[in-house]
């Protein structure tokens, strides 16, 4: 394969775009939203994720070009997870990547890696997420929506985001506005949040851990929306979507069995990690 064709091949990998976008979100947060810029913690996320990926790849005898996926997971951790020490972030990175190799069913990993890592380290009591960190400014939302459009067109998983947002919006509107009698701004305020949009567009759309068929995906995303609605409204869990994704991920193998379709590959040449 000559150099030109390698470059074209690589360029077509949507993961570059995804890395670029997640990196931009992080930069935006640091520049305009006063996120605490702790270089050592961000480095810990990236180094531990990439190193774990390389170690597993070597151990399993896989090619080493899956670093891109590890980078995406690491940036996801930097964006969402807040920790009180470098070691907690390192643990998150190792857990995130290892979950891809350890928790597998039918040749596919079960949990969204970043989601798994976040839930695991929150349980240690040394990490938390800040759902309010995006604030409610307009330019930040524009940024995320813009990035989302770009990436969803590439990996063709917009059905997931759309289903999740529509179902959740419907349920919350019914409860908050129609039943409880709050004003519409309450619902808009809940959805005008970078955290929920980031989750809808960048986390649940991971093609490797979502059902293979469209029908399956719509069912799957609806279940996540329903569960996070219940957890959020009745159990007051502010991490509701993350927990919902974690639980519903367990049903993916079953859904894949019922709704059969071809498995996603990043590109024709890459392997399945």
């Amino acid at each position, binding site marked *: 394969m000559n150099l030109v064709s390698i470059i*074209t091949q690589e*360029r*077509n990998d*949507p993961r*570059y*775009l995804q890395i*670029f*976008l997640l990196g*931009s979100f992080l*930069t*935006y947060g640091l*520049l*305009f*939203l*006063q996120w605490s810029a702790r270089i050592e913690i961000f480095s810990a996320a990236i180094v531990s994720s990439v190193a774990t990926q390389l170690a597993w790849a070597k151990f399993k005898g896989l090619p080493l070009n899956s670093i891109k996926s590890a980078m995406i997971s690491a940036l996801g951790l930097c964006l969402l997870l*807040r920790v*009180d020490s470098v070691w907690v972030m390192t643990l998150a990175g190792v857990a995130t990547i290892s979950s891809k190799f350890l928790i597998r069913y039918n040749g596919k990993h079960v949990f969204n890696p970043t989601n798994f890592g976040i839930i695991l380290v929150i349980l240690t*009591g*040394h*990490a*938390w997420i*800040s*759902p*309010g*960190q*995006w*604030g*409610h*400014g307009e*330019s*930040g939302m*524009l*940024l995320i929506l*813009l*990035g989302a459009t*770009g990436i969803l067109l*590439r990996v063709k998983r917009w059905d997931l985001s759309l289903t999740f947002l529509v179902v959740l919006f419907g349920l919350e509107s019914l409860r*908050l506005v129609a*039943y*409880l*009698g*709050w*004003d519409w*701004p*309450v619902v*808009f*305020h*809940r959805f005008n*949040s970078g955290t929920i949009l980031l989750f809808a567009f960048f986390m649940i759309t991971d093609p490797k851990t979502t059902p293979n068929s469209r029908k399956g995906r719509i069912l799957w995303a609806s279940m996540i929306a329903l569960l996070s609605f219940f957890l959020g409204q009745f*159990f*007051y869990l*502010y991490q509701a979507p993350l927990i919902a994704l974690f639980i519903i991920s367990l049903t993916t193998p079953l859904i894949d069995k019922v709704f059969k379709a071809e498995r996603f*590959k990043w*590109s*024709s040449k890459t392997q399945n990690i």
Partner: protein
Amino acid sequence: MKRKITAIFLALLILSNDVSAFCGFYVAKASTDLFNEKSEVILVRDGDRTVITMSNDFKGDVKDFAMVVPVPVVLREDQIKVVEREIFDRLDAYSAPRLVEYHDANPCQPVVAYRNEMSMKSMAVPDMVMEEEMDEDASDYGVTIEAEYTIGEYDILLLSAEESDGLETWLTKNGYQIPTKAADVLEPYILSDTKFFVVKVNLDKQQRKGFDYLRPIQISFESDRFMLPIRLGMANANGPQDLIVYAFTRTGRVEAVNYRTVKMPTSNKIPLFVNRYFGEFYQDLFHRAYHKEGRSAVFLEYAWNVSPMQGMKCDPCVSPPPVFGDFATAGVNWVTGMNYESQVFFTRLHVRYTEDRFPQDLQFQVTPNAEHFQARYIITHPAKGDLNCSEGDRYVRNLESRRSLEVKELAALAGWTNPNYTDYITEYSKQFKPDKYAPQRNSFLPSSILPRADGDEKSWAKWLFPLLVLAGVLLLRPKRKREKN
């Protein structure tokens, strides 16, 4: 103009009672009294246990006082207490934004540092106003009196209601003046099965106790919700309201879940004369920060580990840190003594809320984040004495450029400008540089440390950023070539 640490150590020895650390002396604080329409709340959160202490800065006739607070459960008598007002004053004084001072050492000779102090004026305005006497036809309106207590100087009712109109009518009939918009606001609380904690003053008890003010009420309960119901209070507010939250947890900072929590600007060097106007300075600084963050942020003013075993509980201390008695009063019941189990973390948050920007009640979470923070502003006294030596000349030149930065910082933070500030900048230079044609040699300072006088530039960049990202997306767009696998 090297800040001379030795001088400050010297002062430490002389004034060991007054100063506690070497990062500057406390000279003034911006207490909560500076903010009109304000309320103060102490929150204690430990697992599902919540203790809320609400201060009453009600200044009218006490018989007109009444308060309605939504609570998640019917409270037992032992879950309601009346506490002394001092706890709020102590916590406010301890955690208020502070002005600290440094002294430059004379480059030509050693000097002794001194300390000065100032006090703040205060003003305050009442919060909720309602009224007395009730009759017993509650059930006609779908209102149930779940419990009724007299605690301290207060008569307390716990109500549950079936619908908001009934509750509104019942309250009005019983002499509580309800704001017109209240029914709409009550509805969502009633439907989520919230109870209402209704308080008014028992005049007999009040007179017997001889207080001329109202003491704070403290309620405690178990609930998985960690929040403050601010929406109800908006019904009778006509402008922004300030809320100061003093929070105690076992692990770390409290932050808002559904709003952005932002640190106040801190450690900025500002001109010397600000110590005469520190209250005004902080008011304006807060006002600007509030607008800059889109009027929708929760501000962190103070965060510190105040555990009994913790060595340094403030740096510098504005007033004594909370001690065992304060923990007990606030409801921090896990502190048992000088042991490692008694971990307490204190957070002070300042929220300015309006109806449009805060559509939801404030929800909080306890984080493991135990990083210390304080809103602290620095003034630096110039060196005293004879500066006629070569080091002295350089010191004066540096002083001028430092003061020019301080003036810019003042403009950026509080928006204060005044042509006379030039005199402040050149105060010493004039003395020692009689040659008015002497070059202005302050350009060696890197331009990046010059603070921007105007926050708007950044918001402009905020919009440019997504556009740059768009360009990046287009650049990374794939060639139109479908892949088949």
